């Protein structure tokens, strides 16, 4: 899957969590822009993990602040 494919797939997954319909760019942050709380993060991460059959550990999550970083991380994980 190319980074663009990964991006498109995660975009459909984030929809139910993007309650305010924020326009998402690579620099969009989960904590400030999308206002994700820890519970939302858990549910969203679980969706991604199931979709791509990967694990995103909490250690990795701590390094991911914005959309671009998430797409890059998932792209890397599903290749390995």
């Amino acid at each position, binding site marked *: 899957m190319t980074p663009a494919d990964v991006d498109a797939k995660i975009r459909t997954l984030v929809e139910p969590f993007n309650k305010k319909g924020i326009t998402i760019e690579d620099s969009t942050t989960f904590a400030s822009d999308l206002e994700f709380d820890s519970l939302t993060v858990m549910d969203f991460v679980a969706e991604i993990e199931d979709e791509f059959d990967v*694990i995103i550990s909490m250690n990795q999550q701590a390094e991911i602040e914005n959309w671009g970083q998430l797409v890059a991380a998932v792209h890397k994980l599903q290749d390995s």
Partner: protein
Amino acid sequence: MTDTIAPVQPVDLLAKFDPIIQTREQLLAAGVEDPFNLVMEQVLSPTRAICNGRDTILLGTYNYMGMTFDDDVIAAGKQAMEDFGAGTTGSRVLNGTFRDHRDVEAALREFYGMDHAMVFSTGYQANLGIISTLAGKGDYIILDIDSHASIYDGCAMGKAEVVPFKHNDIEALEKRLKRIPEGAGKLVVLEGVYSMMGDVAPLKEMVRIAKENGAMVLVDEAHSMGFIGEHGRGVAEEQGVLDQVDFIIGTFSKSVGTVGGFCVSNHPKFEVMRLVCRPYVFTAALPPSVMASSATSIRKLMHGGNKRAHLWENSRTLHKGLRDLGFKLGTETPQSAIIAVIMPDLERGAMMWEALLKEGLYVNLARPPATPAGMTLLRCSLCAEHSAEQVQTILGMFERAGKAIGII
């Protein structure tokens, strides 16, 4: 000559806590008694104290079996203090292992029927020490998202990869276990009773799945020791999987009625932990009086069948009574000695907490981030020493306070 070095204004490292200071000030400005600054001026029994000047029923102390005032427990502590002094002034691995430290570990081995027992200064340190020492860099810890802070802190200290799964979700656990790279060390961390909602874990299925996937299993039985399971060994005993759990973590500050933490295990190499576990090595051992009281209490808990039965009766009565009054509770059925009453928000939760305190009832006000899903809870923990009459009194207090605040 004047000193020409300009003073550098330091970045205030406490500034990041401003939002918390603000929330607290708002709460107190509304006239609410400070929920996190309660003082017990006198403790009259395991179920009664003078709190902030009022005679108060205690319903939030985790003193499940009421051992804090047991005559034998107190006598053992007094004697040990006379004979061995007030404190150890040393680490367990140097000068801090006295007769009673050995004896309390023997009592734990008897209680659980296990080969090894290791006592820590608190339950927090038991989790911190055991988890961080077992799972290091490159290993994986798979844990329930609602795990206690001490479990998370142990994970962080050990630098393992931390993989949380949805609370009590068997399928979510299995999926994550199967995705972990082959050959990696895996530790599944579960709790018997989750202290916020008072619900019980499906240990039977989860332990089986963990074993099928080559993981070691650690279960924290802090809130179940002493009264769940035939011998009070906890949820793992109740569900018939105690022999498959690699490490049981527990505490003395709940059913045992003192302070301290422990890990019991049948692992043949377990004793090496005493040499490599930093929160065990680099801290002072508990006072001999605490050890003697704890050993006496643990051995008495082995024969606490009647008290266990009464505690369950109390839990069922309070759960049903609160439900009938119209309160929203954390569990459909009473699963433990913890009953969580769900509040609509922090403000009304604090008001309800205060109204109960003025009625003469102490419960725990629990709020985010300690609680799941951002909930505010009034957490009630029952004691085997609560009389049936006291439980009825408690229900009356909840009814009056709930109506006054407009929650029911």
